[in-house]
């Protein structure tokens, strides 16, 4: 697999209000258990041992998750790059500043660093795809709660786009399960 990098975001990211506290919440989708990094790594790794009918789907979705990761990174960067230490402190980011200055870091909203135990590869295709469906629903819910906390209309526009992508990905994983069940077009009565 070779990736070609296109230097633009999948969907525009605009942040209209100076509210570094939103960066603290957005980090959940950066390095949290149901965040975009976890999603990308989970699918990129699981795809090796899945039946070849659905490998391409996991490659595509994993790649899209990386583009979402870049959107989240852009949001966090825009919200923090011009903040003073005082402003970061007021936003609850003093501990982040002590450890990382304004650098981004793979951690969740509570500052817990990313860990591989957030993701799983069981080797059983149904178990792995069901985990992927659950991961998409959890990421969708996380976007909902961030939108609820955010009052920035432009940021929320991008977050609503990302939430919708979780829905589409969930449907695609559900379709992958149906493909592997192989009983889709047979008229069966149980």
């Amino acid at each position, binding site marked *: 697999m070779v990736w070609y990098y296109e230097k633009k975001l999948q969907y525009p990211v605009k942040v209209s209000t100076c509210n570094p506290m939103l960066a603290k919440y957005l980090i959940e989708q950066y390095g949290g258990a149901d965040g975009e990094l976890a999603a990308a790594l989970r699918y990129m790794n699981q795809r090796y041992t899945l039946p070849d009918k659905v490998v391409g789907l996991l490659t595509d979705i994993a790649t899209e998750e990386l583009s979402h990761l870049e959107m989240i990174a852009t949001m966090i960067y825009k919200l923090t790059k011009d903040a003073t230490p005082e402003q970061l402190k007021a936003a609850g980011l003093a501990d982040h500043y002590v450890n990382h200055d304004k650098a981004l870091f793979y951690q969740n909203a509570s500052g817990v660093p990313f860990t591989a135990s957030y993701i799983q590869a069981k080797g059983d295709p149904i178990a792995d795809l069901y985990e992927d469906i659950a991961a998409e629903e959890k990421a*969708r819910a996380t976007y909902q709660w961030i939108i609820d906390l955010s009052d920035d209309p432009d940021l929320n526009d991008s977050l609503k786009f990302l*939430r919708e*992508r979780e829905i589409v990905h969930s449907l695609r994983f559900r379709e992958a399960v149906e493909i592997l069940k192989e009983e889709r077009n047979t008229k069966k009565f149980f």
Partner: protein
Amino acid sequence: MFTQYKYWYPYVSPHDPCPPIKIKSYSTPPQLYIAFQPIGLPQFPTAKEALMHGTLWPQLYSPYPNPQKRNEKS
């Protein structure tokens, strides 16, 4: 057709410390009801509309927050 939000009514105690939220809701987006996307589903008329909605197909679109939000989350 299905509805994109479901409602429920949690128990309210006369001794609750905070003003009760009488109706609670949760999101039930289209992927729960489609299972396998049929071929030839109608698409948004323009690429821009599709981008803005985050999907090519209106039937996969899920609004958030709930446009018909009732008196929940106070």
